[in-house]
């Protein structure tokens, strides 16, 4: 194979800088480590943070998977997968079970991850307090003093206005009883999965932050005693594979109000259909 790029695209000094940030992030779970984010050959918002973390993490032996809202075949997922196929020469897969490094935008795979897997999140706004307090100097201070009352006020206002905590994605969590962290815009259905066996790394390219959650770290979704946290999903089964335990996307079928619900995790849905499960609108596997 002709190598037109340094391994995994980034230069060595950049990867060392990112690697040092990842190690500090793992040592202080949930704390946002500043890093000197580089220009990547894709626009901000397309996963530049996740790509840089993946580039610093990949080895030639890895099998790489990319999902975008659970799907392996959206433009974003396909282009990032091809990027590392070309620049790092790694094997790629769409199967969660076969992947050693999984980069994700806005979902955690349905299948439980193992100890030998790494999950890399693309993060747009890493600061959970940013929409409550725009000044970085102040949010830094709030984290250092564990001054998280404002976040509970926000959740309380949800209850007073909507009767329930209306936050449905990017639901704030407290990591290891210390830092309040934005789990990236995953649906709150995925929040309980944040306590897992795999290493979780979060990269925010435009905002220049890296953070991490080591395996088996305590991650608690913020709530109140009388309004406990509830992971929610559409109250349906998948119309293709019949799964009742997976997060669903709603698809409009026509202009007569017909719709279907399908697994957001395409690999989970595919593996279930291959195993013979059939949903309401599904067809028997050939």
């Amino acid at each position: 194979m002709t190598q037109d790029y340094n391994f995994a695209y980034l230069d060595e000094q950049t990867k060392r800088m990112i690697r040092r940030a990842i190690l500090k992030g793992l040592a202080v779970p949930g704390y946002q480590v500043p890093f000197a984010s580089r220009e990547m050959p894709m626009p901000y918002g397309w996963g530049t943070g996740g790509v840089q973390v993946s580039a610093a993490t990949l080895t030639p032996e890895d099998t790489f998977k990319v999902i975008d809202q659970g799907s392996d075949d959206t433009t974003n997922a396909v282009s990032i997968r091809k990027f590392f196929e070309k620049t790092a020469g790694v094997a790629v897969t769409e199967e969660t079970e076969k992947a050693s490094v999984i980069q994700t935008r806005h979902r955690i795979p349905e299948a439980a991850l193992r100890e030998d897997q790494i999950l890399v999140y693309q993060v747009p706004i890493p600061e959970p307090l940013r929409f409550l307090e725009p000044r970085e100097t102040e949010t830094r201070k709030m984290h250092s003093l564990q001054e998280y009352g404002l976040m509970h006020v926000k959740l309380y206002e949800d209850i007073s206005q909507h009767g329930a905590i209306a936050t449905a994605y990017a639901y704030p969590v407290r990591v290891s009883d210390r830092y309040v962290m934005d789990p990236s815009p995953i649906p709150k259905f995925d929040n309980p999965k944040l306590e897992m066996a795999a290493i979780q790394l979060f990269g925010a390219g435009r905002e220049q932050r890296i953070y991490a959650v080591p395996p088996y770290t305590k991650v608690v979704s913020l709530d109140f005693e009388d309004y406990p946290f509830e992971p929610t999903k559409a109250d349906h089964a998948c119309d293709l594979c019949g799964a009742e335990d997976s997060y669903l996307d709603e698809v409009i079928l026509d202009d007569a109000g017909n719709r279907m619900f399908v697994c957001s995790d395409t690999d989970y849905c595919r593996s279930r259909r291959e195993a013979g499960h059939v949903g309401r609108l599904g067809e028997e596997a050939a």
Partner: protein
Amino acid sequence: MTATATTAIAGGFSDPAIESARAFRAAMNVMARPGEIRDLDMARPPAPLSAAAGTLLLTLCDPETGVHLAGACDSAEMRGWLAFHTGAPVVSADRAGFAVGRWADLLPLDRFRIGTPEYPDRSATLIVELEALQQAGASLRGPGIKDSAALSLPDPAALAGNAMLYPLGLDFFFTCGGRIAALPRSTQISEG
């Protein structure tokens, strides 16, 4: 002089991009799972530095990171090797991003930076050379550990004191020959 120059040049990575990627994965895995021991045996630094400690320095250090060489590690051979392969400046303990040496040579720990409340990441990482490294001794709990783990720590009481500073504090790698383990500040330690 010639001998020094030869030692300085030998013993680095033969394929830096690939070997540092593999070395980092080992370092990341042990930092994410306190108590776990992995092989890290690529570089051949001058004596008395171990292969694991040398590999870690090559993987993480460059002109942006001050390195403190403690005790017998601070030799002309070692300074030459570090300068040739990483370009990292050798600095005093209070300015170090990384420090390497035997436990006794690294003491007292309060010389090193522990970060600030706003930026706890601005703290030193200590690479401690041990005579033996095994999954026995002090009992560890906390992030990265399923129930509990055990590791042969040099001074559990001092390291438990470091954990008390959380989220500030030092992070440790323990190296022995070609093997490595780690202890982040987040780990709770009790004497086994």
